[in-house]
């Protein structure tokens, strides 16, 4: 309770209250995440329960149009699935992939950045050279290549079950560089400070110094980076799924839904594409705004 009061009176919450755009972004983000996590309870229908699907409901337009059905607020797709429910279940997959990819990228990036900055020398030169080379290629291309290679390397019948893991791995592998560079930069500063020297003098193991002394002090900027990275990771996931190399159609993400709807664009069923697309844009925009605010709020220079 006391901690909560201190937070409410603190600088960060003050700057949050002062910015209406940030409040809107936070509300939108919370709504998106909530409806995704609790899709099983919140969604009006279960789009994966084949018993409840009725092909006669297929291609129902949104509820406010002439042929609309109030049962299906945002209309239905080619198999009679409720678009709104599909979006909620789909954003669950999108958020999950984005979240785990960012976590993995963060863990790998932080570890390599710490080692690179603390050990220095040849190790540092090697890790940073790899990072430089990777940074000169766009992230989407690297994710696409890893995904493509995995598709060829893995046996065909395990594609669908492994697709989500491969996707997380591909997005994480395309994103670790930024964490490594940021952490390395701050580690170079931290490792010459007195507390690190003290820890070294009393004979602590270098690994212990890195992870229990240096790590907490370099974590701040990484967390900001991660909030902005989640939005990028979600876009990368959606793009890969749209290209047909992402999540399997049995477990559609927002990108898969847009891909499915894209086939019906010309026959006039615009809602199957437009609503998942709009949901994706609004979610990502809100997360970006929130990340931007967090960056400014935590930056002591701007206070």
């Amino acid at each position: 309770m006391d901690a909560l009061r201190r937070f409410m009176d603190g600088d960060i919450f003050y700057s949050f209250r002062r910015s209406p755009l940030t409040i809107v972004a936070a509300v939108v983000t919370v709504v998106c995440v909530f409806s995704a996590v609790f899709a099983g309870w919140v969604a009006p229908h279960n789009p994966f329960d084949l018993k409840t699907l009725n092909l006669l409901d297929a291609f129902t337009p949104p509820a406010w149009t002439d042929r609309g059905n109030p049962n299906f607020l945002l209309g239905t797709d080619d198999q009679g699935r409720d678009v709104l429910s599909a979006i909620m279940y789909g954003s669950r997959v999108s958020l999950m992939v984005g979240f785990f990819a960012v976590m993995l990228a963060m863990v790998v990036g932080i570890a390599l950045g710490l080692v690179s900055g603390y050990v220095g020398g040849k190790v540092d030169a090697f890790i940073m050279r790899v990072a430089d080379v990777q940074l000169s290629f766009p992230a989407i291309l690297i994710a696409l290549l890893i995904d493509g290679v995995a598709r060829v390397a893995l046996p065909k019948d395990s594609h669908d079950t492994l697709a989500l893991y491969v996707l997380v791995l591909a997005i994480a592998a395309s994103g670790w560089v930024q964490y490594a560079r940021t952490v390395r930069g701050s580690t170079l500063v931290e490792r010459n400070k007195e507390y690190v020297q003290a820890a070294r003098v009393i004979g602590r193991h270098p690994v212990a110094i890195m992870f229990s002394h240096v790590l907490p002090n370099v974590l701040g900027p990484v967390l900001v980076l991660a909030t902005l990275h989640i939005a990028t990771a979600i876009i990368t996931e959606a793009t890969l799924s749209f290209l047909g190399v992402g999540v399997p159609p049995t477990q559609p993400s927002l990108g898969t839904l847009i891909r499915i709807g894209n086939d019906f664009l010309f026959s006039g069923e615009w809602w199957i594409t437009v609503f998942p697309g709009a949901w994706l844009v609004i979610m990502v925009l809100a997360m970006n705004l929130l990340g931007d605010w967090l960056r400014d709020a935590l930056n002591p220079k701007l206070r």
Partner: protein
Amino acid sequence: MIAFVIRRLVQGVLVMLVVGFIAFSLFNFVGDPVSLMLPPEATQADRQAMRENLGLDRPFYVQFTTFVANAVQGNFGISLRLGRPVSALLVERMPATLELAFIAASLALVVGIPLGVYTGLHRNSWLSRLFLAGSLIGVSLPTFLIGIFLILIFAVWLGVLPSFGRGDTVMVGAWSTGFLTTSGLRALILPSITLGLFQLTLIMRLVRSEMLEVLRTDYIKFARARGLTSRAVNFGHALKNTLVPVITITGLQLGSIIAFAIITETVFQWPGMGLLFIQAVQFADIPVMAAYLCLIGFIFVVINLVVDMLYYLVDPRLRIDRSAAGGH
């Protein structure tokens, strides 16, 4: 200068070797190339003959050297899906991608620089705020959604522009161009906007922040004090000095335009290299994937090399730093 160029060249060759090695591993360790190429009823003797024919019985380093030698000559084998030489396929598709990338990059520069200058000079006008807000949305919109929304508005609802393909093309030598026919030009409009929009917002923001920085400098104040017209100050002195970073960033972005062309080409069914690559990924067509990987790697290495050398030529401070630092 020469030492610097040689060092960068060696680094580029190393990167190309790594890329080539990945492509080579794709070929040889991922799936058995012999069973991929022979019909299922082939006998053991056929397999052995094919193995010797392809040189798969030779030691690893010999195989890799052969692969590199072939790749340098542009020989990447035969597409498993289309049954034609990969190099011929790539050469055939290249004009489509390059024309699209060229138009998209020009669009980004021609629109992005003036918008950046305007928002830099009039930083508090409502029009600048509008442009900046628009650019934030432009960053949050994934490329494929921009394409879909453009198709929906201009092709489906308004029905004024074509939504897929290149339209009619004319062969100029071995180069098929869409620049010379009306339908080819009309087909270029939506894809190039889709591809160029992200770069446009990027260039606009870059020019704006550079302008804001340059306008604060002493030599601009001095130029104003000398009584030069604001036109001469803004465009003759300020803009000229912002262009160095803009040129280098644009150069680096050229590579990512070609990479993002994969997405645009998929949305618009544009018959370029990116579409070829995506289809290769879906069908596990390894020779095409390997060749595309090498080609893109090569383009990126060349672009990075050229941009590095441009930097070196343009910015004299770099020469001193590099020689003082000794290494990197």
